[in-house]
């Protein structure tokens, strides 16, 4: 099989199945990624702040979650999510594919939140203690100090690490194809089943993933530069 045939086959596959890859596959992957990114970042930040709390049991719970998530494979976490979430939430009204989607999203959110919380915590700790003291000495409460002074500076410091984590999240969503949630890897399985052209389909899917992550890394680069512009 020559390179020429591979390129020809890719062209043929894209001609016939572009909708499956570019609309369905990219759509579900992006939807899943964005949900996980946003919810994971918010939950992760809350966990990071919670880890600095005076209430010890809260700190223990967060540490336990982070350690367990870090210490177990993502695929295993997805399986647990897939079988466990339906017992907690009533999602029977949804189609089978949407049920899998919700389960995977929840599992990935918890996974991402654990990593984000560690990143945000390191960022918070890297901000000079004097900033907190200056703000508190002016009579501002700890919440205002955290949201207006500490977090903006922490986020600036951790943007590169956060961008990395976001790219990892986009790639990890591919694990969700195990449960046929309709993402890019599911599209690959579908088209491969119909055409038996495994290599070509993998090249197509790989290229699309790369375009997605490369775009994100460029966007993060712009955000970094904008934040570096002052201070």
């Amino acid at each position: 099989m020559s390179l020429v045939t591979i390129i020809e086959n890719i062209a043929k596959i894209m001609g016939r199945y572009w909708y499956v890859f570019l609309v369905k596959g990219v759509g579900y992957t992006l939807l899943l990624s964005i949900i996980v990114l946003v919810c994971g970042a918010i939950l992760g930040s809350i966990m990071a702040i919670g880890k600095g709390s005076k209430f010890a049991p809260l700190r223990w719970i967060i540490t336990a979650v982070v350690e367990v998530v870090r210490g177990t494979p993502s695929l295993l976490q997805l399986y647990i999510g897939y079988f466990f979430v339906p017992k907690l939430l009533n999602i029977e009204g949804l189609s089978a594919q949407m049920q899998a989607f919700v389960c995977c999203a929840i599992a990935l959110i918890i996974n991402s939140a654990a990593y984000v919380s560690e990143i945000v915590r390191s960022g918070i700790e890297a901000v000079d203690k004097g900033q907190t003291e200056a703000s508190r000495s002016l009579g501002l409460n700890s919440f205002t100090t955290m949201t207006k002074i500490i977090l903006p500076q922490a986020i600036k410091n951790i943007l590169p690490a956060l961008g990395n984590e976001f790219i990892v999240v986009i790639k990890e969503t591919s694990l969700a194809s195990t449960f046929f949630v309709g993402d890019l890897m599911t599209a690959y399985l579908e088209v491969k089943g119909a055409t038996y052209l495994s290599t070509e389909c993998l090249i197509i899917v790989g290229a699309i993933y790369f375009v997605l992550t490369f775009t994100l890394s460029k966007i993060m680069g712009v955000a970094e530069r904008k934040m570096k512009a002052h201070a």
Partner: protein
Amino acid sequence: MLNVNNIYKNFGDLKVLKGVSTEIKAGEVVSIIGASGSGKSTLLRCMNLLETPTFGEVWMEGKLLTPVDPYLHPEVIACSNTYKKLVAEGMSSGDAIVKIKAEDLLNEKFSSAEGKEYRAAMKKIYDENYIDINVARQKMGMVFQQFNLFNNLSVKENIMFAPVSIGLAKIRKAKRKNLLIKLGNLFKKEKKELIEITETKESIKAEAEAKAMELLRRIGLEEKADVYPSTLSGGQKQRIAIIRALAMNPEVMLFDEPTSALDPEMIGEVLDLMKELANEGMTMVIVTHEMGFAREVSDRVLFVDEGYIKEDRPPEELFKSPEDPRLRDFLSKVL
């Protein structure tokens, strides 16, 4: 104005302050001198509770900032179970207090087994005199050795930050209260009056901005209003830190070695601004290594050493005829 009452501060095994008391009167300029590690910065930081004293109380204008220290209130100690037991055993009340205190100092906490009456007596004093620390700090400006300007805000935003945040929080609180009153009015015949909110978000911001610009003009840095702190020199940063504290119209200003991190040629501009403040009658507490400055502006100089205030006298006397041998030693090294 500011009363420090028998302050102890331990950092783990390290005992930094061992029973320090002093009073800062309104309009007074007090300098605190001493070798590094003597506890002078800790004493200053205890005044606005950036460090919480292990024992002792800090009062500001008749309001209690710290938790109640039972040893400063004999009537509280008198309610304690241990005290009653000791007195019943025939110990004099003075000895009993000394004994209880010694034990608690050893354990670094107030004994919890002193009974309901004791806790109630403590709570009563607390409730009568308590003031929210954030409210108290709004009247206490603090200037740090490392400037601590907010890196994510421009110079003007740095100065406006506290007045705007606190002003907006007040509006939000008033609005919340009004909502509750309105809800209450639905069910009651006697209508309660709503709180009048005269300020808006815009008016607070405009006012804070005008004040910020006025302060910047005062120190001749108005052209730096929109730059970020990282582009400023040390002297500029420290002067802005001072007017940032002034923007809250504080009643007392605390300075923690304000010139120690500055290049020599910039110390003058900061000291000049502080002198100006002193001449305007601002109450100031200054931890400093600038003996000449302390001598010139202070009404009183405290020499802190080994966790105690060893001398507390007007500067002319203290510098001319130091009594404490450690002070003599210290002055011979720095002068």
